[in-house]
């Protein structure tokens, strides 16, 4: 069916234009830069401008930067910090986002429209300013910090009294702001998944005498696994490479990998090292990416069959 249409388009040369113009654009401005990164990771740092060269003992496959990746503990620690923060942020997004998504499927349709709009709205406001909003809350003089301090002092024995809660420039701050920034990425795919589930299954389980928690565990949760994976990957992947959040609220002594890449590139002007770290980050992300695209293509296939009349 579609083949006929595209054949006909092809005859007139329209297809060539529609396909190749954006294709060439993406190759030039997206693919080639990555080939450059890959090539750069095998280069040697020099003091020329631009600061790289191919030469030395092994000009073709110079593994110097990759060797440093394993010998200098800075890089390994940065990877562990990144993965650790990203995992914790993903788990908290799931713990907060899942009940919210499930809640959205249980409210009236008017409320649902309003609340979905409210989930999407922060998406459209500046990412940078959302991080900034938390900087205002976490500072030692802020009302939020004083509130937390007062609650802590009221609940705990006097010996544990604190003057303020140290939040800024810690890994806790990084995780908190990441959960805040990426929560919509978790809620939206989960909601899309949960909304499609057949409520009759829940009702059948209830009629057969299951308790609500049991219904959730045996019926709802297993069916929502594709949504959990999609949401989890959408949080985990950007969280691993995050640069803005750790730079603004993170602990400078245990940097995340995004910051290491940026620092190597700009402060140290070490292009080969920055590229090697970037390649290693991509390798780290390949597995979650493949899991994600597998589920995504399955979801698209479902959409395509549903779209057909």
């Amino acid at each position, binding site marked *: *069916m579609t*083949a006929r*249409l*595209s054949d*006909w*388009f092809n005859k007139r040369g*329209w*297809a060539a234009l*529609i*396909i190749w113009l*954006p*294709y060439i*654009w*993406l190759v030039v*401005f*997206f*693919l*080639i*830069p*990555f080939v*450059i*990164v890959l090539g750069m990771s095998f280069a040697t740092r020099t003091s020329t401008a*631009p600061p790289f060269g191919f030469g030395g003992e092994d000009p073709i496959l110079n593994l110097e930067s990759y060797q440093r990746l394993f010998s200098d503990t800075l890089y390994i620690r940065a990877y562990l910090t990144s993965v650790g923060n990203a995992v914790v942020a993903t788990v908290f997004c799931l713990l*907060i986002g899942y009940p*919210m998504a499930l809640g959205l499927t*249980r409210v009236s349709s008017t409320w649902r429209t309003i*609340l979905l*709009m409210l989930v999407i*709205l922060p998406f459209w*406001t*500046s*990412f*940078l300013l*959302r991080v*900034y*909003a938390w900087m*205002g*809350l976490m*500072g030692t003089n802020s*009302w939020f910090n004083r509130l937390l301090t007062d609650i802590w002092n009221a609940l705990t024995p006097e010996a544990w009294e604190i003057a303020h809660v140290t939040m800024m420039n810690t890994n806790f701050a990084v995780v908190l702001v990441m959960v*805040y920034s990426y*929560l919509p990425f978790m809620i939206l795919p989960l909601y899309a998944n949960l909304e499609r589930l057949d*409520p009759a299954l829940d009702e059948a389980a209830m009629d057969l005498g299951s308790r609500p928690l049991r219904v959730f565990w045996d019926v709802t949760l297993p069916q929502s696994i594709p949504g959990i994976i999609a949401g989890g990957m959408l949080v985990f*992947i950007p969280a*691993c*490479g995050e*640069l*803005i959040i750790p*730079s603004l609220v993170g602990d400078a002594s245990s940097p995340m990998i*995004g910051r290491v*890449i*940026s620092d190597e*590139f700009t402060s140290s002007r070490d292009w080969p090292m920055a590229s090697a770290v*970037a390649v290693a*980050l*991509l390798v780290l992300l390949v597995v979650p*990416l493949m899991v994600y695209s597998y589920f995504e293509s399955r979801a698209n296939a479902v*959409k*395509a069959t549903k*779209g057909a009349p």
Partner: protein
Amino acid sequence: MNRRPLFLIGMLCFGFAFFYIPILSMILFSFNDSRLATVWGGFSTKWYAELFRNDKVIEAALLSLRIALISATFATILGTMTGIAMARFRRFKGRTLLSGLVTAPLVMPEVITGIASLMLFILMAQWLGWPAQRGFTTITLAHITFSMVFVTTVVHSRMIQADVSIEEAAVDLGSKPWQVLRDITLPVISPAIFSGWLLAFTISIDDVVISNFVTGPGNTTLPILIWSKVKLGVTPDINALATITVVIVGIGVIIAGTLLQRAEKRRLRDERMAYRDNL
């Protein structure tokens, strides 16, 4: 399910409080008289006045707006073409590579896209002599590239849900390709194109990491300006700037959302009427 899901309602309340308390607090403190950005010292609008007197801020905002308008428009054209190609041409050489190129920028860490694009521009300048200076051109090129794939995603998912048989009927009845495109395909996907443009626009105007890498001296977009100020700490004038942004975006999204919803309703009604007329 006749039991009220109290736990779920509670989590929704908690979640929305979590979403909006930081933003509301930021808005409140933009009206703070005190220089200390987090301690209340009385109501004042002086930070807004200061903001509008600040030429650097105005200049940066105009540059951001110019880049966003141009890059969103080009990204929409290129992204729509890719979306149509992916949805309607099932077999062509290099289709697998193209689908990879369309997905990769969506998930690529910005810092990697940033250094990759900067290296490309520096090497191009050295070997081809263009772009001679980094700034408006390089930021716009980078923004087109990474926002066009978002347009593609939106358009593509609309197209695979649309009914191909209408296009095929038009072909069978002797329409030329541009007529099919103009009279059928584009009207059907126009809400998707519109939301794609909006998405590309906000991605561009919001971007700080990639812009920061590919820009040159003297070309400061608004996010780069905010980024360099925020790194030094919380200041009341940034609160004011943030409030203005949030209000403009909020109003814009609500208007756009209402328009899109209305267009969608009208389309559904038209479709229903068309079916009824044909019965």
